[in-house]
């Protein structure tokens, strides 16, 4: 088995809120190989963003609390690192792109200033070198007249262009890993297609591994090699992308795929909806988090929280029921 670039084991993160402790991530384990693109899908509140932010040390503590787990990046545990050690890795070896490019860029600094900062900080470039490299980076992500635009402020760019700037910034120090958290959600579909196309091109040119967090199964289908499906702070299914869509095995994944209308299919069949609402996670689930909404729920689901089990090569599911055979596993 090839060396894992990122190996996360048993991650648990909670938040203190006025309503009580929210158990956002409840024992998440996964690995990422070098150069691999991993899609992480799930609805808001399922823990997909918190998982990645925990790994990066970007959860404010308090109210957040990383209670357990390890996250090995090149055999160093990110969760045990000091702030300074983490800062040396973030932006250098791990690049990040977030959902809203307007709030993740500093509005009072020019784009050039923001792009050259990591280059000087992490790579020790001189100001002049960093500026040349920044212009190259903007060109790489398809921003016309790159050199002139370095002196522009974020508000002078459109949403799609800002996201390109974010990608340029994330890739500026040639990271081995890019973490992208819903980077196209705020953009319209034609711009979204531009960005996913750009990421695919950069991936083959630069060969970095990508974790792409999204709620859009369509994007995952086109971009990811492997997919994690999250629900209620757990990974409930994990498979290679073709296997997941051809053979979804967790009731939630099945429901999610069934609830999507498709632009390439015409017949007007009723959408299969998943009744109920996602859990609030005010207690650490002792039963399957999906049980209250599950069509196939049985007694055992209420007593024991299922763990991920291999059902096919590289396909793991956390469910007590074999949905296809309609009987317990």
């Amino acid at each position: 088995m090839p060396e894992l670039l990122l190996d996360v084991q048993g991650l648990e993160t909670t938040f203190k809120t006025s309503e009580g402790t929210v158990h956002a991530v409840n024992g998440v384990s996964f690995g990422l190989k070098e150069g691999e693109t991993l899609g992480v899908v799930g609805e808001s509140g399922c823990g997909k963003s918190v998982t990645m932010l925990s790994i990066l040390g970007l959860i404010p503590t308090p109210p957040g609390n990383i209670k357990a787990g390890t996250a090995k990046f090149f055999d160093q545990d990110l969760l045990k690192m000091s702030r300074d050690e983490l800062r040396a890795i973030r932006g250098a070896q791990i690049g990040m792109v977030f959902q809203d490019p307007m709030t993740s860029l500093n509005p009072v600094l020019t784009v050039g200033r923001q792009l050259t900062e990591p280059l000087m900080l992490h790579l020790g470039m001189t100001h002049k070198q960093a500026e040349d490299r920044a212009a190259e980076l903007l060109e790489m992500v398809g921003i016309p007249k790159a050199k002139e635009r370095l002196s522009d402020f974020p508000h002078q760019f459109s949403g799609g262009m800002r996201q390109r700037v974010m990608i340029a910034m994330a890739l500026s120090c040639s990271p081995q890993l890019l973490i992208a958290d819903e980077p196209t959600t705020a953009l319209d579909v034609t711009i979204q297609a531009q960005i996913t196309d750009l990421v695919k091109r950069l991936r083959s040119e630069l060969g970095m591994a990508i974790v792409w967090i999204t709620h859009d199964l369509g994007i995952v289908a086109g971009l990811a090699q492997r997919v994690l499906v999250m629900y209620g702070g757990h990974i409930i299914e994990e498979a290679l992308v073709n296997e997941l869509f051809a053979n979804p095995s967790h009731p939630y994944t099945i429901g999610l795929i069934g609830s999507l209308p498709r632009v390439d299919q015409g017949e007007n069949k009723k959408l299969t909806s998943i009744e109920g609402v996602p859990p609030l996670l005010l207690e650490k689930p002792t039963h399957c988090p999906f049980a209250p909404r599950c069509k196939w729920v049985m007694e055992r689901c209420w007593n024991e929280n299922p763990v991920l089990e291999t059902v096919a090569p590289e396909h793991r599911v956390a469910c007590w029921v074999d949905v296809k055979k309609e009987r317990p596993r």
Partner: protein
Amino acid sequence: MSDNNVLLRVDNLVKHFPIMRGVFQRQVGAVRAVDGVSFDVKRGETLGLVESGCGKSTTGRAILQLYRPTSGSVDFDGVDLVKLKGENLRIMRRKMQMIFQDPYASLNPRMTVGEIIREPLLVHNVATETEANERVKELLELVRLNPAFSTRYPHEFSGGQRQRVGIARALALQPSFIVCDEPISALDVSIQAQVVNLLEELQEKFNLTYLFIAHDLSMVRHISSRVAVMYLGVVVELTTRNELYNNPLHPYSQALLSAVPVPDPVIEATRKRTILVGDVPSPANPPSGCRFRTRCPIAQAQCAESRPEFREVKPGHFVACHLVS
């Protein structure tokens, strides 16, 4: 030209928002949010309205006279709403309602759900207090919420439940026409299907006519009978759902449809995309001639000179493009 099947006829609708500058607040320009939009909506159908840039929500609001249009006419059941004022317009509003995008912002946090749903009945003076309370119960049941919830406040509900409250409020006056302004885009994927199924069910039950505004082309394909594609304040293509998705004629529609990701990795691996270059231009300063020409892969000289006419190229299939024969 009167057609009994047509409930709503929008003709050359224009809505410009003035841009004011300086001490004297003189008008220095205008955001041309809606710039000459014409279409009709048949009784009992769902017309999907999709686009990017700006204009679709403004179109919906200008139809309901929530924004007074700059010019054009909105013929609703034989009455031109643009000419109506005061009490006459208020009475017409009973027949047309709106479901808003953000169920967090469109419900007053200080009112109980019962008060929210009851308000239209009392404002329009169509029910006594007791009748209204009965009706609230009916409506809550209709949108599958527990009638006992009427004393709760919006913050006690999830996004999907709040959107159901919004739907119940819209139905309170038994309207014939509802503008659904991105009713599901703020909701989680698994909840979206619940709300769309509910909307479809209600449509069948009460013979409602919907203008369904959305940017999710997959959902629009699912719910609409006909679809209008807007770009930068104008309708570029309008036809039946199947015709649009199988045979899009306008280069913008073609690019838009090819850009939508399909949740199937096998199809995604081989799919050809038309990637549009550049961004949507500013509606304050739209390109001359065809609005789409700056991003159009097949634009020619004439596209910059004159605005293409919105014409019927096949029965029921309207396109605004010089290059479609």
